[in-house]
Every structure is written in structure tokens, then in C-alpha cells.
């Protein structure tokens, strides 16, 4: 396969990511924004593939598309009258907003241009990345891993508690 094909596909995915992200921001309709996020997440996953991080790419699809986007869509769909809500707020602070955006972009560009090149890792990747991730998670980073799992368990119990029926109340009514 030629290098040109890779380049063309890369720019295709980059364009999909950027344009759909712009659509998310500029669309007047929340539901279109939410659906447009699908293409953004998918494009970002494709960019991860170009960084040879295929595990992260698939995780991106699973977590963002399968979890967050579906949750977001449910939230948007169950909101009353989304189609005719005016998203634009009445209070507009144009000058401070422009200043903050210009400041952030300037800071990012400054770091971008003053950082001298990339810093390639000394250890080369060999074989499957998945195994490395598994071994590292269960050996080096086992404490953060367990802490995150306890946090998620607590969130799960909390969600189940909130979603429960209130039994005594149910009987009365």
C-alpha cells in the first residue's frame, strides 16, 4: 500500500473530526450536535489508530460512543421541546470571551512552537500493545487501578440507590 493512500485517509479522518466538531459547536439544534459527536469520536479513534494506539482507539469507541454518547442522546431525547429552544443566551460577553479564547490559543501556540521536537521513548514497542497494557495495569499501576474501580463501584451503588423505587411510598399510593 502506498504512502499516499495513508496520507489521504489520514486527512479524510482529520477533516471528518474537525468538521463534525465544528458542527457540534455551531449547530442550533442540540440533537444534531449530539449525533454529530458520533463522527467526532469516531474520527478521533481513527487518529489514534494512526498513532498505532489501536487499543486506545477501540477503547475510545467503546467508552465514548457506547457509553457517553448514548447517555447524552438519552438525556437530550428525554428533554422537553429541544427542537425549538433557543440555545443562544441573552447575556453576551463578547470582549472577555474573545480575550480568553485569544489567550488560550496564544498559550497553546506558544508551547507548540517553543517545545523542541517530540521526545521519543527509549523503549521500543515490540509485539502486542494489549499485553503490555494488561501487565502494566496489574503490576505497576495496580493501586490507581483498584482505586478507580472502588470509585466506580461507589458510583454504581449510588446510581442504583437513586434509581430505586421508594417502597413505603409506593404502597401508600
Amino acid at each position, binding site marked *: *500500500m502506498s504512502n499516499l493512500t495513508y496520507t489521504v485517509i489520514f486527512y479524510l479522518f482529520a477533516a471528518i473530526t474537525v468538521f463534525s466538531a465544528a458542527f457540534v459547536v455551531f449547530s442550533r439544534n442540540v440533537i*444534531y450536535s449530539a449525533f454529530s459527536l*458520533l463522527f467526532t469520536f*469516531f474520527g478521533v479513534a481513527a487518529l489514534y489508530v494512526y498513532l498505532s494506539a489501536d487499543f486506545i482507539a*477501540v477503547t475510545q469507541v*467503546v467508552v465514548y*460512543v457506547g457509553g457517553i454518547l*448514548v447517555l447524552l442522546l438519552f438525556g437530550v431525547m428525554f428533554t422537553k421541546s429541544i427542537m425549538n429552544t433557543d440555545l443562544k443566551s441573552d447575556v453576551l460577553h463578547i470582549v472577555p470571551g474573545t480575550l480568553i479564547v485569544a489567550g488560550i490559543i496564544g498559550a497553546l501556540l506558544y508551547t507548540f512552537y517553543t517545545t523542541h521536537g517530540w521526545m521519543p521513548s527509549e523503549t521500543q514497542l515490540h509485539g502486542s500493545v494489549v499485553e503490555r497494557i494488561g501487565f502494566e495495569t496489574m503490576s505497576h499501576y495496580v493501586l490507581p487501578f483498584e482505586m478507580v474501580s472502588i470509585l466506580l463501584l461507589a458510583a454504581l451503588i449510588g446510581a442504583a440507590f437513586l434509581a430505586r423505587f421508594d417502597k413505603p411510598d409506593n404502597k401508600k399510593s
Partner: protein
Amino acid sequence: MTLAALPQFSIPLLMGNSLNVWSEALVGFSPMGLPLGMVILAAIPLVFIALYSLTYGVYGERKISAFMQDRLGPMEVGKWGILQTIADILKLLQKEDIVPTSADKFLFVIGPGVLFVGSFLAYAVLPFSSAFIGASLNVGLFFAIGIVAIEVVGILAAGWGSNNKWSLYGAVRSVAQIVSYEIPAGIALLCGAMMAGTLDMQKITMLQSGSYGFAHFYLFHSPIAWLPFLIYFIASLAEVNRAPFDIPEAESELVAGYFTEYSGMKFAVIFLAEYGSMFMVSAIISIVFLGGWNSPLPNIGSFALNEWTNGPVWGAFWIIMKGFFFIFVQMWLRWTLPRLRVDQLMYLCWKVLTPFAFVSFVLTAIWEIYVP
């Protein structure tokens, strides 16, 4: 197990039998710098889905359901009604493309497309033969489980875009069902991945080859392997919205669920997506638990049945046959079991399948560590 362990029998014309020869030859094929081979590579599963859903999917399902109910099924068009599907497709092609006035035009139109893409993407990692796989990823199995998420978004787009309460109910039910059943399905497949020690579909299949045929399959690998197999099969029925888990399209309550408003070719695309995911889950279960493209026949003494029935072409035959067998079971169940209620569905997922999936996960882990 290395490449050399692959069965040596093959037809000379088909470029030997080292791993992925066909697909790599296709990727290398790029006349005038255009990656035509890659396009063909991606088109092969597409043509396969179309052909199989035309023949076995629609016609087979109608005939099978007819025979199970002591009917004859389609008999008018052609001998035994063989041409019935073609007539149906011609009718669907000619139909007017109706978009309801109150529907959300954009979402209504892209919904079936996103749905089909979601079910088709997983075919990229299904090894159709020892010589053919779309992309031999080392995260293949994970990709196949995860990419279903796109299908979920397609269903929501179709259901919400139709602007119809039945469609929306069907879509919401379907999504709730798919998202919940992903958990037992994923854990059950993890048991298979644990037995193999890899997520690469081609490697998982290769590890199950051997001269005793079916005895090397992961279904017979440990005394508890049947449990994740069964859990994945049940969960996969729910993931593709097949009976007894077809409450998203329960005709007695919701007309036709999220595709109530669709007609003509859009309806056909939705059905293509459904048949696509039916074969996808059947192929995944046969790859992880039933050896994929490996022949199930054992060598008996000098009758080297296993060697005779292995090779790239036989591999394609075996995996498609295994997939078709599970599709037959799906159709069989559809006409055998009554539909579950919504609460029964969630009860089955969270209180039966998920705990048993965890049990089988732990038992498989113990087996893998302590039994050599």
C-alpha cells in the same frame, strides 16, 4: 502454535496456505497507485452479507418458519418459491421513498445507514478463512464487541428521527437492551480470550486447531467452558434483537419498533443490518468457542479427516457453515419461545446472566492458572 502448525493440505492454485495470504495479496493489489485491492477487500464481506441475507436470511427464514408451523411458506414465484426474494427486492426497489412530513428528515435518512455501518464494521476483524481476514488486529475481539456501539446510535437516530412514539419506544427499548446485554456478552467472551491468551481473532482460531478436530475447540477446553458459551449465545440473541428478546419490535405493542415508519429500500437496509449482525454474532461465537475455520472432524487412525478438510477454502466453508448453524438456531428459537416482558428481560440480564458470567469468569481464571 506457530504458522507451521497450520494444516498443510491446500489446493495449489490458491497460493499456499500461510496465514492471511489472500487478504495480503488483495492489499498489495493497487493498479496505478489506487488502493483498489483494499476496496475489494472491504467489498467482499458486503457482497457476502447481501447474498446470504437474500438466500438464507429471507428465503430460508420464511421457509424454516413455515415448516415449523406446518405451513408451506412462499410457493408461488419459481419452483418452491425460490425466486420470491428476488421479486420482493424488485418490489422494494420500485417503491416510493417515503419520508413522513413530521419526521426529522436528516436523522430519518442517515439512521439506517449508520445502523448498517455499525453491523458491517465488525466484519473487518472476522477471519473468514485462514487466508482471509479484513484486518488482523491484535485487539480484534475487543473491536468486534465495541463497534456495536455505532449500531446503537443508528437505532436511536432512526427511532427519534421517525418522530413517532412507537419508533421512539422501540429505539429506547432496543438501546437499553443492547447496552445491558453487552455486559454478560463481554464477560463471556473474556473467558474465551482468557483461554486463548490473546484478542487476535486469527490467533484465537489458530490455537484451536489440532488433529482431534472438535476436541481442541474452547467449548471442550475446560469443564466450565459451556457456561460462557451459553451466556454469550443468550446475550447475543438480545444484542441482535432476535426472539425471544425482540421486544423492541414487538408487533403487538409497538407495530414494528424503531423501523415502523420505514419503507422501500430504507427498510431493506435495516433488515440487511439485522441479518448482518445475526451472522456477526454467530461468527464470533463460532470463532471464540467452536474453532472458527477449523474443521470439526477428527483424524481417525489413517483416515486423516481433519487434514483432508482443512485449508483456506475449507476454512471459509466451515466458518460459514458454523455461522449458518447458529443462525438456524436463532430462527428456531424465534418460532419456539414466546417473547419476554421488559422487566423479565432486565431480570434475566442483571440477575441471572451477569452473576453467572462473573462465576464463569472466575472459574475459567482458576482453571487457566491451576490446571496445566
